[in-house]
């Protein structure tokens, strides 16, 4: 099979600490990147812009949340609000004539600064109380965005986002927007992959496991929590800005409501806490599930010749989505990433399964 | 040694080669066998981490709460294997476990502690048992109205024992009841234990590090070391045993560390 190999021989530390020590993995990553880069050639623009693109942006966002939730172990129920801050910051900057490249950096920085407010909550309390205070902060930010006309754009409440311009060049084609999303997603993924290997990444994990124990061995949990929240907020802010720039093209408060925060959480949980590949799976799963569910239901109703009310059709996917979260927590709490890992571990030594035992 | 274990028929509790693992991996006791005769008082002695509490939990079924399980061996109560029973069913059969460190319900009054502990008994029995507990521990009666968290350590230990008695046990297991108590209190509590044992025929399995006090009231003792029973004898014989005197009764001041290591090695040999 794809992964089969007799063993792993490393002759120096660099090899041991490589991102992908197994050659088959390197081939696979290369192949996937190639597929992603050439996607506009073989996918029609509907798929490209309404499935692939939001998936990539949401994956980047989910990775940012995973940094806080999966690695630093800090609950965050206000992630969408932070994304919203980035989105609004970018749109306002653009409307003020700031080039888009700089606008999204501004978006990230604004989000990082305001998002660090959440960190101050995390420095005082944890667990349940952190979850509740971040939830409350989400409400405060929602409220602020929608009630301050200077932010939300006044009574019309929808703020048109100017077209993206990169190096003075307007990017409006589906393929162009797709590449913007792809680059952002790859950037975040690379950052997260490397974070695992840095002192920061290890310190975060230490803080997650037991913050006072981490403190005893000299990890300043105060500092690392702050850094974790700031970093993840930066990613959230830019992701929010990219989402508006490439996908929604207009920004409203509802795009970043508490439901969206829960959706982001669901992506991380379904994908697997702390799993990078899991964030891809989780984001894809949560985004595609309602659509897939709708087609499935209409297929079923067609098959059995009954019809469902509009209300039922509108709410059923949502209910199933709740059921899915419950199901994942009960059956595979570590999510799709773990399932993938299990399959991969199995294939790694297939057909010599006994090697592991 | 053999002569004592062979009272099979009259044993209320027998453990046969019980092995316990925590978290599916860590082996805490490795084949413990012991027996408590009907109406008898038996001590289980051993150092920190030897596996005393684990043994008791394997009997009361509380391992489940700590992700532990009996992987091998049999726990039999009154001749019936009870390995598969839930903790509450074992309590109903008559096994009571006084946890290490007292663990009273802090926000409840002593009175309520006793009521809560009668969940497996009828309301009528509960009232009767409560009177009995108060007669053993009059001090609890005096303090029955204030939150148990504010009781003194000795009173809390009495409450913990009283709470166990509320379940109408046939076998009472106590995990280090002397922990952190003044000697006169320990003596008082042990007095009451032997009184209950005498008057009601309650069988007692007493886990202790305070071997001096424990060996005064029990008839037999087991010595457990790193998860294995290494010695079993009458209380009299154990008190005379030089090893026990050295390491559990605090005799022989002038021994040095090398002798201790030597002793440990010798112990392993024996088992």
């Amino acid at each position, binding site marked *: 099979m794809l992964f089969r190999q007799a063993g792993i021989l490393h002759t120096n530390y660099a090899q041991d600490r490589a991102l992908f020590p197994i050659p088959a993995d390197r081939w696979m990553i290369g192949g996937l990147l190639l597929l992603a880069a050439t996607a506009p050639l073989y996918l029609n623009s509907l798929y490209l812009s309404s499935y692939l693109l939001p998936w990539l942006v949401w994956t980047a966002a989910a990775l940012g949340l995973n940094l806080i*939730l999966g690695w630093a*172990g800090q*609950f965050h129920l206000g992630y969408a609000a932070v994304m919203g801050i980035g989105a609004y910051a970018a749109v306002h900057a653009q409307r003020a004539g700031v080039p888009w490249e700089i606008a999204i950096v501004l978006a990230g920085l604004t989000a990082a600064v305001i998002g660090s407010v959440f960190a101050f*909550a995390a420095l*005082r*309390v*944890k*667990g*349940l*109380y952190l*979850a*509740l*205070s971040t*939830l*409350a902060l989400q*409400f*405060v930010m929602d*409220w602020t965005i929608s*009630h301050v006309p200077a932010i939300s754009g006044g009574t019309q409440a929808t703020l048109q986002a100017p077209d993206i311009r990169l190096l003075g060049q307007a990017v409006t084609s589906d393929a162009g927007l797709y590449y913007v999303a792809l680059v952002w997603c790859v950037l975040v993924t690379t950052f997260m992959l490397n974070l695992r290997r840095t002192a920061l990444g290890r310190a975060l994990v230490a803080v997650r496991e037991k*913050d006072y124990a981490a403190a005893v061995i000299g990890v300043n949990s105060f500092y690392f929590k702050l850094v974790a929240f700031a970093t993840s907020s930066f990613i959230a802010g830019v992701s929010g800005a990219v989402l508006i720039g490439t996908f929604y093209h207009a920004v409203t408060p509802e795009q970043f409501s508490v439901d969206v925060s*829960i959706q982001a*959480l*669901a992506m991380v949980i379904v994908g697997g*806490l702390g799993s990078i590949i899991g964030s891809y799976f989780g984001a894809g799963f949560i985004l595609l599930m309602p659509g897939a569910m709708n087609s499935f239901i209409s297929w079923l109703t067609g098959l059995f010749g009954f019809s469902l*009310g509009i*209300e*039922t059709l*509108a709410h*059923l996917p*949502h*209910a199933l989505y*709740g059921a899915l*979260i*419950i199901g994942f*927590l009960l059956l595979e*709490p570590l999510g799709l990433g773990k399932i993938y890992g299990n399959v991969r571990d199995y294939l790694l030594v297939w057909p010599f399964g006994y090697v592991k035992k | 040694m053999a002569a004592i274990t062979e009272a099979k028929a009259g044993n209320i509790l027998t453990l046969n080669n019980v092995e316990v693992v925590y978290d599916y991996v860590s082996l805490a006791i490795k084949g413990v066998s012991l027996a408590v005769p009907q109406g008898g008082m038996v001590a289980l002695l051993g150092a920190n981490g030897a596996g005393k509490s684990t043994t008791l939990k394997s009997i009361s079924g*509380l391992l489940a*709460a700590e992700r532990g399980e009996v992987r091998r061996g049999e726990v039999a109560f009154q001749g019936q294997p009870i390995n598969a029973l839930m*903790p*509450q069913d074992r*309590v*109903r059969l008559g096994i*009571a*476990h006084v*946890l290490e460190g007292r663990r*009273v*319900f*802090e*926000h*409840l009054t002593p009175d*309520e502690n006793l009521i*809560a*502990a009668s*969940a*497996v008994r009828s309301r009528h029995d*509960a009232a009767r048992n409560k009177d009995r507990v108060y007669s053993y521990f009059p001090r609890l009666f005096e303090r029955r109205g204030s939150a148990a968290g504010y009781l003194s350590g000795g009173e809390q230990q009495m409450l913990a024992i009283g*709470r*166990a008695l*509320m*379940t109408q046990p046939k076998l009472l297991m106590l995990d280090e009841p002397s922990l952190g108590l003044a000697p006169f209190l320990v003596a008082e509590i042990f007095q009451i234990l032997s009184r209950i044992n005498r008057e009601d025929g309650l069988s007692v399995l007493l886990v202790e590090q305070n071997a001096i006090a424990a060996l005064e009231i029990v008839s037999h003792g087991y010595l457990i070391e790193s998860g294995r029973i290494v010695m079993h004898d009458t209380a009299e014989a154990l008190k005379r045993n030089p090893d026990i005197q050295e390491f559990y009764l605090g005799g022989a001041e002038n021994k040095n560390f090398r002798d201790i290591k030597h002793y440990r090695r010798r112990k392993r040999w024996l088992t």
Partner: protein
Amino acid sequence: MDILLLLESALNGALVGLMYSLVAMGIVLIYKSSSVPNLAQGAMVMLAGYVILAFANQLHLPIWAAIPLGIVTMFVIGIGIERVALRRLAGRPIIMILMMTLGIEIFLRAGSMTIWGGTSRPLPIGISDSPLFLGPLLINRAYAVGAGVAVVMFVLLVLFFRTRIGVVLRAISDDYTAAWSVGISVERGVALSWAISAVVATIAAVLWGSVQGVDQSLALLLLKGVTVAVLGGLDSIGGALLAGILLGIVEGTASVVLDPLLGGASRELVDAAMLILTIMLRPHGLFGRHDIERV
């Protein structure tokens, strides 16, 4: 500022606050027995409202029969939720448990709307619209009834916790290993607390449904419930009652003062601010126990 208007808002606020307490008490009940913060309490209120309406409208039962049937149904549903979703998560990290209650929230909310639709329906329980007068102050009759029921509910719960079963539940919340050691069936106790909490949610559903109709907005009571529960101390029923009154008064007066300044809808802001302030300044609430997760 019109002092009478302020007084009137404070008074009505206190009554509404007592109705929030009903939601909070459900959260407290579950938290007390199993340390699970139930973020699905609002959705349970909503579901209860729909269940009662189903008995009343679809089976054409009179409301006085639909309500007890709703209570019984919710009792069973409460047990079911604990049995299916929560029991297996015992001992898991709080992140998982919170996420589970959120999943239940989504499932119950969307599930009720899948079955019964999202349009708001009235749940008339025969309280007249005409206000009560207390001197010159107008009092909303429905709020007054709701507040009265909340107080009765509180008294009933306090009495319940004095009974044998109630004492057992409190013992479980104190130390569940010790509870196990004396033969208490901890799982059954926790299931019972979910059942009672679902019943309390049903009562809340009747009162809130009669005030604002039955629809998705009932689930939004969660924020109020959580704020009141935390403010009162998460494991204190009495705390929930007093915190409800407090939040209601603050909300009522703040909306009079702030609404003209902020352009309306200041209640949510006040709730969120109260929640944050409580957690930051006094995480164990006004009447909660000290053992609290703090860094």
